[in-house]
């Protein structure tokens, strides 16, 4: 049951009506029940695995706080969660790599491949679980004793499939609070859901037609189609993931919960470091808090080199987290190198850009960062290193001239896609200065209703409702 489906619309409408019709204490149980139903639709077996994860982390959290073996319990929880993630997501990747290496040495790898289906959201909930145990260990939060509260925190349906990587220390206290119906909050949340849906079905799913056409068989193309697909994939990924996040945040807000913000106009970033402060914020701050910080502390004697090593290691892990394959490792490495470069050259770059007016230097930096983002995402989207290599070496090759209109989107649809992207950027620009929802709310009723009707009609008519799943759900 994905957010951009009729089944979710029906599910969420029924859920909300009942949620606000029952007493405060029952509401938590109702969220838990609805979340179980929601997850069950994705994967009944995944629900069993997730239940195991919840029980395991519930116990380790209590043991970390109460037992005399705090550190051992922490390591047990970390290894348990990483172990699970490794078995389901990475075992076959490393096993195949081992087979390749052994073949080079003329040896046979006796370890068979596992045939397991990756449970939806495993990459997200294992990170949350590790964060929770570390927080309990560092006494940043008390272990949650009420099992149903703890289970709801992990199963909470708006974020279970694709995040945000919510910190239990943020969500658990909210689960203890009694939520009331607030007209303004709910209407604001509904607008956010509609905005997310617009990004997903009008922009992301439309662009996916062109992007998939090129990336599924890149060797058929050279030059413009490759550049266009790389460029549009970056926008597609953003519209898809931020659209999902908006819907997740909106759905939570309807119930009265505030989840972490995940995006902050990433394409306005002036450096790669800045980009990672604006893109998938809940994940990048998790990496910063639970991986980069401990690593840089451990290697602090190495001074700047220690920091660079920590950045590099963090981004390799980030790449692997995003997907299983060498293209993702390389994507992480490239980002690690870029961040390391920026760390080493921070003084020099400041000095250099002082020669230009701040406005010019900022715009140039934005363009450079955006080009870097497009190039790095080209690795992440390519099906193999071979494909990525081909794409990079044929960006400026004009030998196969394919019209951009022969890539699955006719001129009218390409125009709609471009118009929608411009609209998205304009609205986000205004949003960064003042709440667009507040601006709309301040307009007379007729204008407001005209905007709502037009927005809904645009989504219904221009959207792609053929059931495209969200990209980040695979991670």
């Amino acid at each position: 049951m994905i957010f951009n489906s009729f089944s979710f619309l029906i599910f969420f409408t029924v859920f909300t009506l009942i949620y606000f019709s029952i007493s405060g204490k029952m509401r938590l149980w109702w969220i838990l029940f609805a979340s179980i139903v929601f997850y069950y639709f994705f994967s009944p077996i995944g629900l069993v695995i997730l239940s195991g994860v919840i029980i395991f982390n519930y116990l380790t959290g209590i043991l970390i706080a109460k037992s005399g073996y705090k550190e051992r319990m922490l390591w047990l929880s970390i290894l348990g969660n990483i172990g699970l993630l490794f078995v389901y997501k990475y075992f076959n990747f490393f096993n195949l790599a081992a087979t390749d290496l052994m073949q080079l040495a003329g040896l046979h790898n006796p370890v068979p491949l596992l045939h397991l289906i990756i449970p939806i959201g495993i990459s997200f909930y294992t990170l949350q679980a590790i964060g929770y145990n570390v927080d309990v260990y560092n006494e940043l939060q008390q272990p949650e004793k009420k099992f149903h509260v703890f289970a709801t925190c992990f199963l909470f349906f708006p974020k279970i499939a694709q995040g945000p990587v919510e910190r239990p220390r943020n969500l658990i206290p909210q689960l203890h609070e009694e939520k009331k119906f607030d007209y303004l909050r709910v209407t604001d949340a509904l607008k956010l859901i509609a905005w997310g849906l617009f990004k997903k079905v009008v922009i992301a799913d439309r662009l996916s037609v062109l992007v998939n056409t090129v990336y599924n068989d890149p060797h058929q193309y050279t030059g413009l189609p490759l550049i266009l697909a790389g460029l549009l994939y970056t926008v597609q990924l953003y519209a898809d993931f931020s659209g999902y996040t908006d819907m997740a945040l909106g759905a939570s807000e309807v119930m009265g919960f505030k989840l972490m913000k995940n995006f902050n106009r990433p394409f306005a970033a002036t450096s790669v470091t800045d980009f990672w402060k604006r893109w998938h914020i809940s994940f990048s701050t998790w990496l910063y808090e639970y991986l980069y910080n401990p690593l840089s502390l451990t290697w602090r004697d190495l001074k700047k080199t220690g920091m660079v090593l920590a950045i590099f290691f963090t981004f390799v892990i980030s790449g692997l987290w995003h997907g299983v394959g060498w293209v993702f490792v390389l994507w992480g490495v490239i980002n690690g190198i870029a961040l390391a470069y920026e760390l080493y050259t921070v003084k020099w770059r400041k000095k250099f850009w002082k020669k230009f007016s701040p406005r010019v230097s900022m715009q140039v930096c934005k363009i450079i960062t955006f080009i870097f983002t497009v190039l790095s995402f080209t690795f992440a989207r390519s099906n193999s290193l071979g494909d990525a290599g081909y794409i990079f070496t044929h960006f400026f090759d004009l030998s196969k001239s394919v019209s951009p209109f022969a890539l699955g989107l006719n001129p009218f649809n390409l125009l709609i896609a471009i118009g929608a992207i411009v609209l998205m950027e304009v609205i986000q620009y205004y949003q960064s200065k003042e709440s667009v929802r507040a601006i709309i709310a301040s307009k007379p009723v007729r204008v407001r209703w005209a905007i709502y009707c037009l927005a809904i009609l645009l989504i219904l008519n221009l959207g792609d409702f053929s059931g495209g799943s969200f990209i980040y759900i695979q991670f």
Partner: protein
Amino acid sequence: MISAEAVSFIFNSEMGKLLIKCLFLCLVVLTASIGLSALYKRFNPLPYSFASGTLHFKTTYLQTHSDSINTLFAGSSRVMREIDPHLFDSLVDSSLHIKSFNYGVNWLAASELFYFIDKLTNDSSVHLKYIFIELSKIKFVDFPNLNTTRVTHWYNPHDYWFTINSTLHSNSSILVKAASTASNSVSFISHLLNLGYVSTLNDFSATKKITEEKMKQLGNTYDGFGGMEGVAGKDVMEKSTEENVLNRTTRFLKNTNGLTLRKKWSQYEFTKFEKQPALLDQYNPVYLERLNQMTDQLMSKGIYPVFLITPRSEKEQYEELLPIYAHLPAQHKIEICDSRKYPELYAVENSLDETHLNKKGARILTKILAEKFSQIHEPLAK
């Protein structure tokens, strides 16, 4: 869990106000969508066959070969795989000058099929004399397919009402009736809201291109038949679909119990109705009325309809369809699904999979059909 107080709370609170506003907004959007839909039809009419590549391909072929094709076999994949137009044409009386075409398409069942029959027979570029129509039970739309173009494209108020009304008068369980009413209503609303219309236009432009390429490749000998031997043969499907079918054949041959069961269902249901003919009066009146109306309309246009129930149906299909079938005029129906009379149509060696015949089975069925058609046609001719 939800008390009367809670219900009163919904309607007297801020939440109630919001609900009423949302409902009003939905009404405004729906009205605007209907207006937009009229505009779309006026300025950019999609052909009625836009919903899938195969549908469009077969319809286009039919329209462009209207001078020669005068007979149609319309229905689901069973029709597509089990009726061979070339063989049929060679077996029926040559003086009838029959040139038939297989309009079988995967999942083309009532009510979508009836929609297409209306469209085809009102299409001035299609000239038909006979139409063989497969009967099938109205089913609910499964969840994953709810928003797809293929599911939502055909809903007009008339066909939607027939679907709901017929479902409610069917022998299905209350749960199935509820699921069918809900899913068909969602599909109807999706249609009214023009859900994903512009993307559909884009998809159609791709479909159109593929159709033009296929038409060039296939020339004039194409008859729409999609029979398969169990090895890749001539049909309209993509290679991956062929592979899927072959996998199905392999799976079927490992365990043929499903076919045995279908044979037993046919035997059981026909025997049951023979022993208790009073049960035949418990028919679905809405469905029968639609078939009678269709017959009258087709006959008034000079098209002779023949209704069929294809072999290997589910038990519920027989239960629903046999009483309706019994009340159809004898000259407008051909019975080809009784496993007692036609055991060869339920034989493993004639099977592509549990529900479909292979080419050998298709030849047997087509012969039976041609023979029976001659039997009902001769008295008519006299």
